[in-house]
């Protein structure tokens, strides 16, 4: 039992509630919310080291023994993701301080981000499938409010679609849980895993597992991503960045968790299906990314490519591929935030998202330009940036699993991703400088610092890959050996 495990969930929850009471104190909001995200990062680092030494950390809430209460489980994967989330949200908050605007700040922007974080961290840490549903709801309702916060026409139209699609996926999620509970009589994931192992993953369990896959695919933007491009481009840049960095990753995490912990017995069926979906997603994402001349659209389609790549590594289901996936999630959370914030800044400065209308920004904003460039290279997997290691490992994993086509699609689409982003860089930052400082729609004051942190992190994660590699490798080992997780949750007690 380790009380630290619950902190990443309740720190933002309590901070958010307190802030909601003092809703005119914007400076307090900024200070406390940043403090909350930073302290979450610290807790996550502590957890990572404890997990490295003692194995997964468990908290049985209310002291009810598993499987009767709700178990919180911090294994290496969860701890790494919580840490990355904390860092990314900290950077996004810094960016928001200078960009989100007083009206939105007064209308509970910071509490909502913290509640979103509650849901995200809860999803990463919970060991109970119904609680996972509840955490998803927390995250989604926070995102519904954030996406519509401000009430511009575009936001309202896109948030309607977003909410509708997500409501349906929530409904399917609930139905799947009911089916699973009906058959297995439990909600604790470790317990479910043990029971599936005992009964064998056959018959009706396969369709039920695939229903879970569909639910999480909608959330992750795996093939069923149609809601994503519109809704991620509607809200202000910083909200888009938080969504792009976190929300789809939660869906990807859920797929990884469910199909490595519970339904891992028949990878020929489930994981091949995930691989196929991943391949199609990468292709459709890359095709969408090269199709347009609009910053927001190009960036959102790039989200879909990465999700495909992460799950391609997972589909290979071997040590190399899984290590690559975990590494790539961390990388992608940082770099997606970087590229969305940098792209958002371009739109903020020029007042347009159409790259044909922007030119020569590098003369006025060299730092912004080069940070966008670094993000572009990192996303394409150019060494020594952070994308490199993940891409090599994922490709290696798919090759080892004999999914040569999948690894090939991964490499081809990373070329297309590079092309699409380079198009933004070359058209917006190069060329003749048409803007003058007076004509700019907004100032970059305060915006470059958080982007700079993320750019530095992508360098650090690439050059210092060895530093986090042992943690990532442990996370992948944990995924391949569910016994570690189950043993930690259920202990040696006889399971009823």
């Amino acid at each position, binding site marked *: 039992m380790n009380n630290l495990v619950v902190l990443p969930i309740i720190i933002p929850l309590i901070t958010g509630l307190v802030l909601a009471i003092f809703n005119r104190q914007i400076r307090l909001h900024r200070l406390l919310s940043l403090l909350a995200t930073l302290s979450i990062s610290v807790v996550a680092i502590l957890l990572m080291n404890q997990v490295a030494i003692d194995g997964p950390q468990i908290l049985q809430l209310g002291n009810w023994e598993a499987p009767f209460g709700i178990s919180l489980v911090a294994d290496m994967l969860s701890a790494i993701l919580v840490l990355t989330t904390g860092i990314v949200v900290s950077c996004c908050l810094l960016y928001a301080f200078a960009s989100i605007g007083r009206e939105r700040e007064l209308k509970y922007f910071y509490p909502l981000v913290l509640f979103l974080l509650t849901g995200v961290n809860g999803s990463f840490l919970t060991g109970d499938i119904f609680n996972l549903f509840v*955490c998803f709801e927390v995250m989604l309702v926070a995102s519904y409010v954030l996406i519509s916060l401000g009430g511009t026409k575009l936001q309202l139209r896109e948030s309607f679609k977003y909410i509708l699609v997500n409501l349906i996926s929530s409904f399917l999620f609930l*139905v799947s849980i009911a089916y699973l509970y009906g058959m297995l009589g439990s909600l604790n994931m470790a317990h479910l895993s043990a029971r599936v192992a005992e009964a064998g993953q056959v018959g*009706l369990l396969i369709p039920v597992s695939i229903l879970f896959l*569909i639910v999480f695919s909608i959330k992750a933007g795996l093939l069923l991503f149609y809601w994503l491009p519109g809704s991620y481009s509607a809200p202000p840049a910083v909200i888009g960045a938080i969504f792009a960095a976190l929300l789809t990753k939660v869906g990807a995490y859920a797929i990884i968790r469910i199909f490595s912990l519970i339904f891992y017995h028949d990878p020929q069926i489930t994981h091949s299906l995930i691989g196929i979906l991943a391949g199609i997603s990468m292709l459709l994402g890359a095709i969408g990314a090269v199709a347009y001349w609009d910053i927001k659209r190009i960036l959102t389609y790039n989200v879909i490519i990465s999700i495909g790549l992460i799950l391609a590594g997972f589909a290979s289901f071997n040590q190399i591929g899984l290590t690559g996936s975990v590494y790539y999630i961390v990388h992608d959370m940082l770099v997606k935030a970087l590229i969305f914030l940098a792209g958002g800044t371009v739109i903020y400065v020029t007042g347009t998202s159409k790259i044909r209308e922007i030119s020569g920004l590098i003369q006025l904003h060299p730092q912004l330009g080069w940070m966008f460039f670094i993000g572009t290279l990192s996303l394409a997997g150019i060494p020594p940036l952070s994308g490199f290691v993940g891409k090599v490992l994922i490709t290696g994993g798919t090759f080892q699993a004999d999914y*040569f086509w999948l690894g090939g699609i991964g490499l081809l689409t990373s070329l297309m991703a590079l092309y699409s982003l380079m198009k933004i860089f070359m058209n917006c930052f190069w*060329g003749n400088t048409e803007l003058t400082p007076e004509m700019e729609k907004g100032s970059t004051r305060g915006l470059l610092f958080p982007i700079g942190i993320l750019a530095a992190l992508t360098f650090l994660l690439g050059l210092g890959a060895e530093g986090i590699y042992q943690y990532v490798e442990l996370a992948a080992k944990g995924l391949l050996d569910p016994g570690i997780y189950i043993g930690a949750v259920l202990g040696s007690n006889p399971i009823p």
Partner: protein
Amino acid sequence: MSWLHILIFTPFIVALVVPLLYKQFVHRIHTGWFALGVPILIFLYLLSYIPAISQGNTLIFTLAWIPSLDINLVFYVDGLSVTFGLIITGIGALVTLYSIFYLSKEHEALNNFYVYLLLFMGSMLGLVFSDNIFVLYAFWELTTIASFLLIAFWFEREKSRYGALKSLVITILGGLSMLAGFIMLAMVTDTHSIRAMVASADLITAHYLFIPAMALILLGAFTKSAQFPFSIWLPDAMEAPTPISAYLHSATMVKAGIYLVARLTPIFGGTWEWFWIISVTGLITLLYGSYNAVRQTDLKALLAYSTISQLGLIMSLLGMGSVAIYYGTGNEGALYALASFAAIFHTVNHAVFKCCLFMVVGIIDHETGTRDVRRLGGLMQLMPVSFTLMAVGSFSMAGLPPLNGFLSKEMFFEAAVNAAQMSIFSMESIGVLFPIVAWLASVFTFIYCLILVIKTFCGRYKSENFDRPVREASVGMLIAPLVLAGLVILMFFFPNTLSQYLLHPAWVAIQPALAQAGELNVNIAFWHGFTPALGITIAVIALGIILYVYLPKWSKIYNYYPRAYTLNNIYDQLLKRLENGSRWLTNAYMTGSVRHYLIYVFSFTIIIIGASLWLFDGVAFDFSRDAPVTVYEVVLTVAILLAALTVLFSNSRLVSLVANCTVGFLVSLFFVLFRAPDLALTQLVVETISTVLFLLCFYHLPKLKKEFAGVKFELTNALVALGVGATVTIMALSVQSTRLFPSISSYFENSYELIGAKNIVNAILVDFRGFDTMLEILVLFMAGLGVYALIKLRLSGGKENEEIK
């Protein structure tokens, strides 16, 4: 960390400092002077390895990077890497010196220029010294990025950006493919070290991944070294400043592919696939480049095509030399291995004379303001030094004595003649084409060399063609090409010295087996007697002069080739079609209509779940354990169905709403029947509140207008709805019949003893699963905040209201 590591990192470190120095000294000292020390230093250091490598020794320096993944900076010093290292730093120093006089410190962004240049230099050095394939790949991509930035150095120009993007797309495509090949190699051999792979070469050639790995890696090498048909990026790369063209796009970076093929020859060589792919690609490139160089009017474009052609020549030599590995030790092996030697020799020679030529063209451009041969002419008297340099460089390229190009060109002819006599790999039937292509391509080479010299410097001087008085370049700019021209001549007279210290050790790296047997011997002589190679040289000169004289008569053949089918046009069209096709496809399914999106999601669900139910025997109906159906239940079910249908077909919002809440109330009656009073009460409250809220909202809404969207659309909707309903129902019934384990809920039945609660549901909600409840309360709280914010905050969207799908 060894000195070699430190020195290879030096360019990167200096690159970080250069912008600061630039800011400090921009008006006083040309930034190039700060960069110049780097290549000189490394060059001198690399010279110190020569004694060791000329005795056949090799050195290894290791620095850990990602040891867990076996990705480490393992730098391997042997003849091949030192030869390339000396080219990179030697030419690098001369180019830097030249650039100091070429680029104005007042008008150019010198900080960027030297940062990119140093970045390139460091990456290139890392590339040739890396023994670890993934580190090699890392440096490989970095050279691409540096080259991309340098080509687009004048980023305001449309053509610069076009050229940069083209080189990036093509070389990254190759780079990624090479990465895939490397990963396969690593899988097969279980090592990341090239040396170790050479040792287990047999394992690779016998493996089923041999062909894919080889093809993928060669794609990388061919794109980088501008082999046909990937050569199209190189002429456009000439948009870079001339010092860069001289350095990257003729002497060093484009040789990376050559280096890679040479380095991997001991692994893949000796197979007919390797031999054919490389030799044929090389020969085609050779012919294509030289044929196209003749028709260029821009001197730089001419040199670009000439570079393509020369790279093809070297590539084909490497192909021919690889055969030696098939023969193993013995006379035949030693004979064919000479081609590998010629490849290295020509790589060095080409770097020297081509760099010199580029510099002269740069001088002409700098002094006259044009590079167009149609406007140039008669510059001999005005620029005598440049003329001499151009003549030395060109005639060396044409293969004339007493210049270094003559020696390697002769060896090339000899290798081609030898290859024609091979009796393996089906060479007996078509091998004779090798010397013919070599001869033909050399004729074109000879012609464009004459164009370079004669059209630029001879003839009549037309002062009206120039916007400035033409004079000889400053001494500073002439130093570097003078050194290179001196080398061209020196290397002709002392080839064996060069061979002993540098070329032979490099040769050993390509042909290790023969080297071990002590059968790698070469003696370069000016005069071999009347050999076939000499005959070809004479034939080249004879036909070359004739064709040059009659050039105006036959040059029309260049116009016959349709423009639509040029490689450039194909590339442009491909890219355009890719974009248009992508837009068409994406617009086709991303309609922006949420109805469509839901149809996709639901159809996907029905198909996948339906298929898996069918495939894995998921459907199992077992009603035997079910309670008997009572009349109440039947009545309720019928009522619910009727109410649900009313929602669909009603023409008034109010009726629909009432019908909708009827469904809810009836469901709560089911809870009563199934003895779940808490749930029934909850459901009643929820239904009541939501109905009241709906009624409040509907009061403000306009009258409902039934729209009929067409039979097809409505039918699709109906099918999807039925499908989803059926799927969910079938699964639910099957679950009901497939209870694999008893539920854990029996534990909660003791809730009175556990927590003193008489109501299990309450106990679960507030204690066992209180955490869920807390978070659900948070959900409600947020929904409240959201509604409040929506009502209170209405920002104007302005331009954000654009259509986004």
